[in-house]
């Protein structure tokens, strides 16, 4: 009994025919940041949705395996039940209510009596105080992400799931947000599962990393180790072998094949 969240041999099937992920296992220890990286279509988001109970709305179902939170089986629960249990997701798109104001967004989630108050959120993200009365739909990408994280924190999460935090943001904003997230996680002893395409950014703040490919976990290990793993570097971090950042102009003109199987 160590990990807060455990996923064992998870299999998800879409529309009763297409297997999206197969035999995925992960562990998220209490108080740590775990990164789940991989490209689009690798099954990261499906894994995330399975954990947060979103699958039925996508006509998908968990056909095998189990998900446990503090040893208690949680697969098949409704999203709002999971939210009450502390599993809070920041989705990739539509992460804020764009027709409500920033304040209303925060109030939507906020419950009385939690350790995290709106004051504290404003402390982390002062911009949200400034934009309080503005409609959330008019915020920039980075500000929306801040609001979404703020909203999620107000739901008193025990496990925070963040889907594609860096998507479409400027490198400078990504760096800033990643550092903020690390700070928040430390200060609140918050457990975070980060799903990212931007492997470099995610692994830089994570303790552990999982790499997914075609619906399976293909690499796992300490984040620092993954960062130096030659295959991970070549295919996800953009640097083959020793040469850091090989230029796109030097690519070979035949189709390259992946080295591992499955």
């Amino acid at each position, binding site marked *: 009994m160590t990990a807060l969240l455990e996923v064992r041999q998870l299999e998800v099937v879409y529309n009763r025919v297409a297997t999206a992920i197969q035999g995925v296992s992960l562990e998220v220890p209490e108080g740590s940041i775990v990164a789940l990286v991989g490209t689009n279509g690798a099954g990261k988001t499906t894994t995330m949705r399975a954990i*947060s109970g*979103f699958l039925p*709305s*996508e006509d998908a179902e968990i056909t095998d395996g189990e998900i446990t939170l503090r040893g208690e089986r949680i697969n098949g629960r*409704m*999203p*709002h039940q999971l*939210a*009450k249990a502390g599993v*809070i*997701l920041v*989705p990739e798109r*539509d*992460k*804020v*209510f*764009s*027709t*409500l104001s920033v304040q*209303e967004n925060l*109030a*939507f*989630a906020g419950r009385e009596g939690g350790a995290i108050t709106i004051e504290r959120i404003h402390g982390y993200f002062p911009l949200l105080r400034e934009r309080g009365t503005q409609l959330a739909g008019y915020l920039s990408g980075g500000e929306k992400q801040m609001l979404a994280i703020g*909203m999620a924190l107000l*739901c008193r999460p025990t496990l925070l799931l963040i889907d594609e935090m860096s998507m479409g943001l400027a490198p400078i904003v990504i760096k800033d947000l990643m550092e903020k997230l690390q700070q928040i996680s430390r200060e609140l002893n918050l457990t975070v599962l980060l799903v990212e395409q931007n492997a470099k950014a995610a692994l830089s703040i994570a303790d552990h990393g999982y790499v997914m490919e075609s619906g399976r976990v293909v690499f796992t290990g300490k984040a620092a180790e993954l960062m130096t793993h030659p295959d991970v570097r070549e295919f996800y971090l953009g640097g083959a072998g020793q040469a850091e950042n090989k230029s796109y102009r030097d690519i070979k003109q035949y189709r390259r094949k992946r080295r591992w199987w499955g």
Partner: protein
Amino acid sequence: MEFVATVVILTCTYALLAAGIVILYKAGRVVNFAHGEIAIVGGYVFYSSGMMFSGGEMSPWLAVLGAIVFSVIMGAFIYATMMRRVVGEPFYVAILVTVGIAIVLKSAIIVIWRAQHLTIDVGIAPAIRLAGGATLSYMDVASVALTIAFFIALYLFFTFTRLGVQFRGTAENPLLASQRGVNVNLVLSLAWIIAVLAATLSGVLYGGRAFLSTESVTIGLAGLTAALVGGLDSLRGAVIGAFVVALAQYLTVRLIDPVLSEALPFLILLVVMSIRPWGLFGTVEELDRV
């Protein structure tokens, strides 16, 4: 005075229908084409449950009870068995499902009530005599009062209560709302129940003033027009739209040709849509949503 009474009652009838359509639209981006049918069936249920045990004499309390039970069951049933499953499908699926519901309800009127023309008479004698020989029954007065109360309650609910804000959030993004701890199924069932309740009230109003039959389901289309004229996402617009439609319909029947009155709401609609397609109080963005 007859004129005022008729238009007021007609406005209430349409406003209730339009309000239901607006609520359903706001909650789930569904445009309900079955609202007229629901209203008329509600009226029939009101009548039948009032008549059930009292042998020819209407018992208002039983009738009200029957109507409420009907609304709760009907609203929850439609949502749970049908509308819950069309989330995420192309927009036309939800609309056509409601068209299907409309047909089934119509057939229910034929099979269960033999499509008979009924006028709801609660048995409270008309009391208020207005100048010009028109009468206003207590039932009419009660209905108008109920309609006003209904709208005030809705307004308070959406602006001031936490559930109301959650409702608005759910309307925009159900997935996110459910992730923030809102039971979306409960909220949307509630929306359907409120909408069916409003429709039933409107059916009773209409049944008391005119009569219930398979033809009177066209009030649903008038209600839909009212909602569109006012703006599909505006409750305030629903009332104004209802007034516009009711007034125009009354005037056409009186002054031009009763046959035209059926086509009339749509002619108004065509005019409004060509000038201001999102309705008098609606928001422009809604045009692209559905």
